[in-house]
């Protein structure tokens, strides 16, 4: 347990974590002012992987911007596809066929599981356990194969289209997904045995990295980070979109506020995602995946539009300002880890360096999405 200590400001030194550090999983730099082993202040420095994604939206047409959505959060690209498709559909008033909506939900949830699996593997690797990574990547490989057979790409998906999808799913995908659900349920039990119940993991996580409800609200933290602090907020329930209202699932919430609570929330989320996929497969209607009537040229009427989706890391919002032209006048992306990261400084003060890195992992940071 990290103890708040009396820090001697004049005896501090600066330690750079990153931009090339294995624990930051990307090019994130944290300037830590240390007092011995304890952190006095942690300043995050972004900008090493800035690619001007928001500006790019202003000088390319709406369909041309779609590939960018796969490159923000490369681990849950499908949800980002969904967000962008949603905002343009709202702006242009395009109806989405029901079958397409169900397929969207299935692919997004599969992608959420694969994203959490990468997090689980990499997080336990950060804490010093190598083996779970292998199991996680083996399971994730099944999802990637399934999604590859439909979308054609393995990671940076560009699958959604305005009003529909790039192509329909086939029977092979449906049987493959059903087999995966059975396999994954077994594997989740195995993870519970191998990782969740492990005493080293518990000792490293329980009681460390405390973020309370108030702090989450002040910094705008969303996703499993907020739900691990007892905040019951999920875009899928609070501002329902797509066919989520027709599906029966729970939002896992844990009052623990520590790294272990966030860990448990993510593990439970994987189970809930499996439930969603199972129901969506059962309810999958027949029909086309693209609308019959769709404008040839996407030109949203001038105005201000907003759409939000729940990615694997939290609330992803897109605000689109259109002046009626072929390109967006302004596109603002509100990405989850950007907000989640900013509570790091306040939360890690007085923490030991090794604990702070274990805490950072529990925030599930994806740098290209934070620093876009």
């Amino acid at each position, binding site marked *: 347990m990290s103890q708040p200590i009396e820090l001697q400001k004049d005896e501090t030194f600066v330690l750079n974590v990153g931009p090339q550090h294995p624990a930051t999983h990307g090019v994130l730099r944290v300037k830590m002012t240390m007092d011995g082993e304890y952190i006095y202040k942690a300043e995050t420095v972004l900008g090493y992987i800035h690619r001007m994604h928001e500006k790019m939206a202003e000088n390319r047409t709406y369909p*041309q911007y779609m*590939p960018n959505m796969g490159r923000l959060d490369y681990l849950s690209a499908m949800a980002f596809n969904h967000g962008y498709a949603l905002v343009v559909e709202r702006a242009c008033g395009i109806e989405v066929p029901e079958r397409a909506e169900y397929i969207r939900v299935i692919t997004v949830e599969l992608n959420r599981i694969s994203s959490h699996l990468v997090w689980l593997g990499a997080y336990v690797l950060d804490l010093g356990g190598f083996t779970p990574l292998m199991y996680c990547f083996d399971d994730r490989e099944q999802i990637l194969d399934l999604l590859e057979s439909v979308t054609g*790409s393995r990671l940076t998906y560009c699958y959604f289209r305005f009003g529909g999808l790039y192509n329909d799913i086939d029977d092979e995908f449906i049987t493959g997904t059903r087999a995966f659900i059975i396999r994954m349920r077994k594997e989740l039990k195995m993870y519970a*045995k191998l990782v969740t119940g492990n005493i080293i993991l518990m000792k490293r996580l329980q009681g460390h990295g405390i973020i309370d409800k108030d702090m989450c609200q002040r910094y705008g933290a969303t996703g499993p980070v907020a739900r691990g602090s007892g905040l019951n907020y999920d875009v899928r329930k609070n501002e329902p979109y797509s066919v989520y209202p027709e599906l029966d699932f729970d939002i896992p919430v844990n009052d623990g506020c520590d790294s272990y609570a966030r860990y448990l929330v993510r593990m439970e989320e994987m189970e809930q995602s499996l439930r969603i996929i199972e129901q969506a497969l059962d309810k999958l209607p027949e029909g086309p995946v693209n609308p019959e009537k769709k404008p040839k040229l996407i030109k949203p009427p001038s105005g201000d539009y907003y759409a939000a989706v729940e990615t694997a890391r939290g609330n992803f919002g897109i605000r689109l300002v259109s002046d009626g032209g072929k390109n967006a006048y302004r596109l603002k992306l509100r990405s989850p880890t950007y907000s989640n990261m900013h509570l790091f400084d306040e939360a890690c003060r007085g923490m030991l360096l090794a604990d702070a890195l274990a805490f950072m992992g529990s925030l599930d940071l994806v740098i290209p999405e934070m620093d876009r």
Partner: protein
Amino acid sequence: MGGYFSDLFSGTKSLLDGMWVTLKEFPKRPVTLSYPHESLKMYARYRGHIELIGDEENKPNCVVCGMCERACPSGCIHLAGEKPEGGKKKVLTSYTLDFTTCSLCGSCVESCNFDAIRFSNEYNLASTRKEDFIIDLLKRLEEQDK
């Protein structure tokens, strides 16, 4: 003191649990392939770089409308054509793909109304030279038939 012994006990138990999970993997076959000696077959929908589709005489279906060039977000397609003397239709004279900037989004394939381009299944493309990724698709189509 009691906490110490209970920690010791549960620690040993979780260690044995973990080892048992790993031990069960022992008799299983490896899930990996020894690339490059073996390689995977890609799915039919796999998106490699684009390629031209030819007709029976291996002449490209392309009519040089330039839709793909305009649809491309990164401007990686360059094509040119000319009208032969006496001919009505334009004939493709060059089609270059700069694969270094391609993001495989598929806008070009979707924008094509003449069934002239598709995704290839090519994925063994590692190289240290930039020139290897600037692909002359017309030449590729001609060579494919041989």
